[in-house]
């Protein structure tokens, strides 16, 4: 079978929606057939790319018919088979950016179902995240396109969203290093220009930081991550999708670890005030931002607070408490900010300011 015929066969196997072929046969059989076709033309990047796409479409088609098949083992088997095939394809075509993007997109699709990810097991999980991290690294080296990083970060986020998988990743030193490193590089290289990269990277970090002690370890081992998250907040201060994850991560860093941000206190608080004003209706963001402000004020109580900054902070806190009057979290965070200001003696300073006399 030549390459053209293989491509047509892959198209057929992919099912393209109705997936007559895929549903006619067992899912694992369809996946196995695609993998076999990819293996028969390993030298053809086009076949590998078509194979990756076919794997994704076949997986989606299968997921849509899960209730009919209800074959859990097949799901896990498909992910394993697909991962191996795509990893080999990327190894052989390391310079093919398009193939990397397609493979990472497929991985994203493969791990969308958290239940499947949770059943992968330790080895398969480690193999998958290592493959994704390697693909992200290779794509970043060959291209300035954010697409591969977007898909890679999203895939890793969905893996980390499964607590079992997140624990596996964190406990495996190689996987941990590869994955965190890949996300850090993606955030550093594309976080400012791509809101999706920033969003998925921060979402991944948020999921990881939900594990106990992870935030502390990350802040200690990779302090740059903290700054990158602040950068993401600053660059996407109007994007609620980014802010929801980024402020949560920063809150974890700030409250759990007292992580030092290279950004000064005043710029950080001003940034957060800007964020709170911009997305004042988002209780999650507002709560996180207030908590970060509170932590920052607590950690740097010795620093002089600019009256302008205090004014803006008090004003926005006032408005937010009124706005989120049904949210105990926001009200509590606002109260905490005021309590910290009081502990820092700010009211006394303000009231004894000469201009107030």
């Amino acid at each position, binding site marked *: 079978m030549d390459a053209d015929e293989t491509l047509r066969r892959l198209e057929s196997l992919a099912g393209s929606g109705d997936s007559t072929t895929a549903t006619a046969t067992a899912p694992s059989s369809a996946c196995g057939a695609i993998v076999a076709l990819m293996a028969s033309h390993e030298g053809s990047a086009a076949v590998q790319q078509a194979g990756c796409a076919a794997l994704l479409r076949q997986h989606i088609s299968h997921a849509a018919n899960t209730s009919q098949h209800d074959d859990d083992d097949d799901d896990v088997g498909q992910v394993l088979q697909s991962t191996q095939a795509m990893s080999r394809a990327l190894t052989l075509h390391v310079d093919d950016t398009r193939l990397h993007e397609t493979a990472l997109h497929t991985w994203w699709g493969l791990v969308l179902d958290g239940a499947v990810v949770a059943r992968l097991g330790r080895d398969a999980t480690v193999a998958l995240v290592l493959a994704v991290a390697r693909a992200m690294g290779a794509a970043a080296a060959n291209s300035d396109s954010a697409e591969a990083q977007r898909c890679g970060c999203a895939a890793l986020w969905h893996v980390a969203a499964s607590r079992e998988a997140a624990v596996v990743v964190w406990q495996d030193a190689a996987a941990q290093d590869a994955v965190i490193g890949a996300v850090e590089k993606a955030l550093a290289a594309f976080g400012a220009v791509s809101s999706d990269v920033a969003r998925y990277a921060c979402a991944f970090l948020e999921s990881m930081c939900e594990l106990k002690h992870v935030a502390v370890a990350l802040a200690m081992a990779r302090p740059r991550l903290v700054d990158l998250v602040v950068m993401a907040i600053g660059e996407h201060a109007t994007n609620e999708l980014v802010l929801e994850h980024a402020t949560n991560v920063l809150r974890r860093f700030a409250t759990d670890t007292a992580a030092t941000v290279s950004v000064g206190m005043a710029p950080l608080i001003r940034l957060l005030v800007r964020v709170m*004003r911009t997305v*004042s209706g988002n209780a999650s963001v507002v709560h996180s931002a207030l908590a970060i402000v509170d932590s920052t004020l607590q950690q740097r109580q010795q620093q002089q607070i*600019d*009256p*302008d900054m*205090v*004014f803006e902070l*008090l*004003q*926005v*806190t*006032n*408005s937010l*408490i*009124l*706005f989120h*009057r*049904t949210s*105990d979290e926001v*009200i*509590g965070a*606002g*109260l*905490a900010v*005021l*309590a910290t*200001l*009081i*502990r820092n*003696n*700010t*009211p*006394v300073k*303000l*009231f*004894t*300011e000469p*201009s*107030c*006399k």
Partner: protein
Amino acid sequence: MQIKYATETQPSTRSRLALVGLVDTIRHVATWPSIGDAVRMQVAQVIESMDVAQRASTGAPPVATSATAATRAQRRASRALSVYLSRDSSSISANNGLLTPDQSQDQLSIAGRSLSEDSYTAVSTPDSTRNPCISAQAEEVFAVPPKLTLSNSRRVAQPLPSAATQQGSSSSRRQSLHLEPPVHADFGPVPLPPNGRSRQPSNVSSLSFGSIKSGSDYVTADSSSGGPGYAVNMAEADQVWARRRSSGSGSFQSVDLAGARRRSKQQQYHQQSAMSHSSSMVTLHSAAISSSSTSVINSGTTADQGDSSKPFDVSQLSLAEMLVIVCWSSHGWIPPFIPAAITACCLGELLFHETIAIAQQMRLDGIHRVLISKDAADHPAIKHNKLLRSLSDLIEATPSHHSFRSWIKRLGKPSHVRFKETGRRKQKIDYSFFVS
């Protein structure tokens, strides 16, 4: 009229005002029924800390222990919770015990109805374009909710309802009516006369400006039959005030509402009844300039100590010259960047110097909207634009650090004038000043 913002004042002054505003909001938070116990406790702690900080900043001696401060905050919160009334219930249960079961809702004057959008002339809305959500939220300022004014003349002692009773009377038509204001922590007991007995005022009429009706001269809505309260029109009221002026201020007695509440219900009944006859009470619906709410109350105690270098004799004012300020606080509607909106109804050119002080305070508080009611606008002083022009000029040109408290001091509040928070509703606080 272009009104400048507080942002033009010094940063520390703005911060101070913002701090006072936030603390005021937090005091208000304790009255929200939706908050949980943890937040309620947090509020009490913050208020206590703030009180300590404020005393530290002013060098004032401590006035309360932490336990009492927390207790006060909790009492305020529970009191606010207890004023939920049910229209379906035959008894209007208010924890102040001033309503009888047979008093129906319609006997509460709903003055806010008249303060609808069309009854105001917007004088200035310079900030409505600063943020899209401001203009949207500012609309709520015009949509004035019903303002329920409880006439003193209708107050009759009634046992306090239990919390369980109030909970049980909840219904879908439940409406929040703050008939009893939370007693402000800083509003101390009113001093008793030397004989130790409360002053029993006599010959008092109740004049409430909170119920100005559009297109009507009537300034009090309590004209229901059977009660000692009565409605007066402007002309009649002017005559009343003219007579009082000529008779001198000594003929008026101050009313100790706070003290009255602490006395027995029977005593309270008599005092409230007497008050309806004898108190010349002008309701100053203020409010809620966030920074002023505490200041006004504080002034009730501090100015009593004597800063009356320039006595301000309220009795020298005619009714038409009375000042009614309706300030809408930031409570309830959310101005993201502007601390407060204010509606000012200024009656009478004789209040020019008071208006100066108010204008100064407006500027400090970042007032972005001044509305003149049609009733007020019909007044000759308003018609001739003297007051507006003066107000405008002052806000534009007068840099001042006078606070609301200083305004009170500037008036030289004599000892026979007492300010008191008389109502706290969802979106505003009412103040009354009682004139001897």
